[in-house]
């Protein structure tokens, strides 16, 4: 009986030792809470040195053949590139496409937003550059959709299509579709001009105009604004012609075969 009790106690002690040791030795996940100033910058530097340093260099000066320097790109660029999952790149290539962001930089979580802010603060502290707007979410959606649409067609549609369905550029580059972009991402993209996109500084498009453009994109994307039925991807006459043949003409030939076969 005592033997059995001794064994049980031994096992319990071993479990406590292993569990406690694990809890002590494994590093705690990066926690960032509304810090400001130097703490936040240090935190951003730590994040940078884990996730970005291999391509962008130890002092943000870039690495030849791997990635550009980041001095002066601003935290708007950081927010856009990292929150859309473009950075860090999945593999070494000269362009990034939208994918799920890393969990530590997921803008949908408290911690992800804090990490994004910290990383941005670190980049911002080294050379400045366009900054992420103070407003978020609905505050970035303007009220004049029509004006936004006009500005969108003038400045954006030549690459992103009438209703944000993307397009093509030279050398196998594709302006992205805007279906998944959040207001913050659209705003920071306009500010920072990622990849082949030009920079739309506040002197070219005022913050109000940027917000109107965002309002327009949100108003027309997806199945929104389709009073006529299924949008066919809004790809225009190419998709319509395909449907005319594949749906319309095939249905009619079927009808004719049926009518012709009846006696």
């Amino acid at each position: 009986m005592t033997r059995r009790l001794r064994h049980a106690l031994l096992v319990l002690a071993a479990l406590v030792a292993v569990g406690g040791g694990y809890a002590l030795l494994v590093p705690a996940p990066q926690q960032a809470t509304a810090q400001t100033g130097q703490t936040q910058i240090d935190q951003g530097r730590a994040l940078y040195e884990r996730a970005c340093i291999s391509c962008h260099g130890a002092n943000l000066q870039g690495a030849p053949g791997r990635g550009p320097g980041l001095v002066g790109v601003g935290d708007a660029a950081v927010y856009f590139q990292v929150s859309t999952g473009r950075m860090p790149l999945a593999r070494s290539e000269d362009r990034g496409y939208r994918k799920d962001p890393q969990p530590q930089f997921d803008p949908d979580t408290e911690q992800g937003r804090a990490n994004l802010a910290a990383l941005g603060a670190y980049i911002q502290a080294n050379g400045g550059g366009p900054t992420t707007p103070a407003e978020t979410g609905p505050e970035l959606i303007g009220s004049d959709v029509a004006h936004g649409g006009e500005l969108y067609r003038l400045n954006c549609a030549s690459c992103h299509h009438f209703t944000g369905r993307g397009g093509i550029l030279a050398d196998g580059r594709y302006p992205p579709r805007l279906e998944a972009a959040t207001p913050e991402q659209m705003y920071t993209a306009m500010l920072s001009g990622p990849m082949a996109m030009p920079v739309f500084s506040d002197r070219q498009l005022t913050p109000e105009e940027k917000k109107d453009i965002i309002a327009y994109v949100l108003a027309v994307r997806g199945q929104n604004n389709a009073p006529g039925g299924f949008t066919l991807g809004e790809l225009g006459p190419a998709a319509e012609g395909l449907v005319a043949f594949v749906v319309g003409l095939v249905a009619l030939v079927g009808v004719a075969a049926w009518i012709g076969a009846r006696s």
Partner: protein
Amino acid sequence: MGLVARTVTRATANALDRRFKAAGGARRQASHVFPKHHSFFWGEFALYSFAVLVVSGVYLALFFVPDTTEVVYRGPYEPMQGLSMSRAYHSVLTLSFEVRAGLFLRQLHHWAALLFVAGMILHMSRNFFTGAFRRPRELTWLGGVALLALGIFEGYLGYSMLDDLLSGLGVRIFSGILLSVPLVGTWLHWAVFGGEFFGDIWISRFFIAHVFLVPALLVALIGMHIGLVWYQKHTQFPGPGAREDTVVGERAVPGFVSRTVANGVCLLAVLGLMAGIFQINPVFLWGPYVPSQVSTYIQPDFYAGFLIGGLRLWPRWEIHLGAYTVPAPFWVGLVLPLLMFALLAAYPLLERLGTGDRGAHQVLQRPRDNPTRTGIGAMGLTFWGILFASGATDVIAATFDIPFELLVWAGRIGLLVLPPLAYVVVRRICLGLQRADRDVLERGVRTGVLQERPDGVYLEVRRPPGGADHAGRPIPLDYGGARVDHRPAASPEPVAGSVTEEQR
């Protein structure tokens, strides 16, 4: 009810007959014989689509304003609120959002336009591949070619005059092609636009052409086309009793008429469903035309796709003749389509010259029985198809993640290589199909049943459609041009003497 209907019908018919002596003619026309084949209904797709176009177009024309005067939008459609636009585009927005059934009828009109041209292309292919254009029907063919060209032009006019950003870019291309014509280009452009692009007169001109001039021509040509088919009688496929001097089929009334009415009603149903389900040409998303704006995925409607494809593939070859420049778009924007339509129109003549066949033909050929013509047709369709696909290189590039430049070169090389290849391949397929038909007629239908001869050789049992002679050899049948049944007979019982000298 039935009694009333009968009485009214009888009274009307009698009244007509007393006044116009209509009974004799009506009886003769009602007995008009129509050959039966489901592909003979394909031309009606275009005919009934045209009818839908006329009816829906009249309604749309009540609300469309062909005017370039600039106005400010104050309607219910939020994303256009307060924007400047032409009265034409404004009236389309009003038509779409404020007129009862306006958007539905616009979509119906547009889908009908696509199926009008698609139906013509299908119908023309059937006539080409079966040799229906041969003497005495050259004029019907010519009328059809003119209808296709006019149909494309009519569609383009209607698509353009809405003055939205998508079609405005097409109008700019049209203006550029006009300007590219050597010597008279500028004059042509002035004649159409009344000045420099964009001008303020072109919409009313396009409108008159779209709702009056071209439709009038279309109606006249369609009348001639159908009148000729009625008067010369329809061609027929070879079959029992179908000879050059007889027509086998069913009477116009009630047989043919009930079928064609059913076809028309079904077409209206298909078009109605498409117009209700699929959004087409949402001009309210494209925005009003402003020369400084542009979007991606700019295409014309599919029927003009081959023109844009040509413009996208053609290299930038400018020819300088002294003071004159012949710009590159001239060759593909104008010369190529004219050449394509000229070849299409001249094909009956070219085939007659090539084959020396000057006879009249009431009986059609199956595509396999004229491998050269079928090969030429495949060549033409391939050429057209590559131009057509190249008209959407941007959409293809983005959808399938293929670099755009690659597609341009693929189109250029494909345009030269694939049509001859299609000719060779299709010709070989035709010859193979002929051989398979003759094999059945001469040796019998394959049954899949093996029989062992006393010497140990296995042979497949065949069922010769013409039966076997006393020695067990199949009696070969002549190929008359009709479909040969290749299905094995229902029961695989060997027929006496059907074992033939078959290679193992």
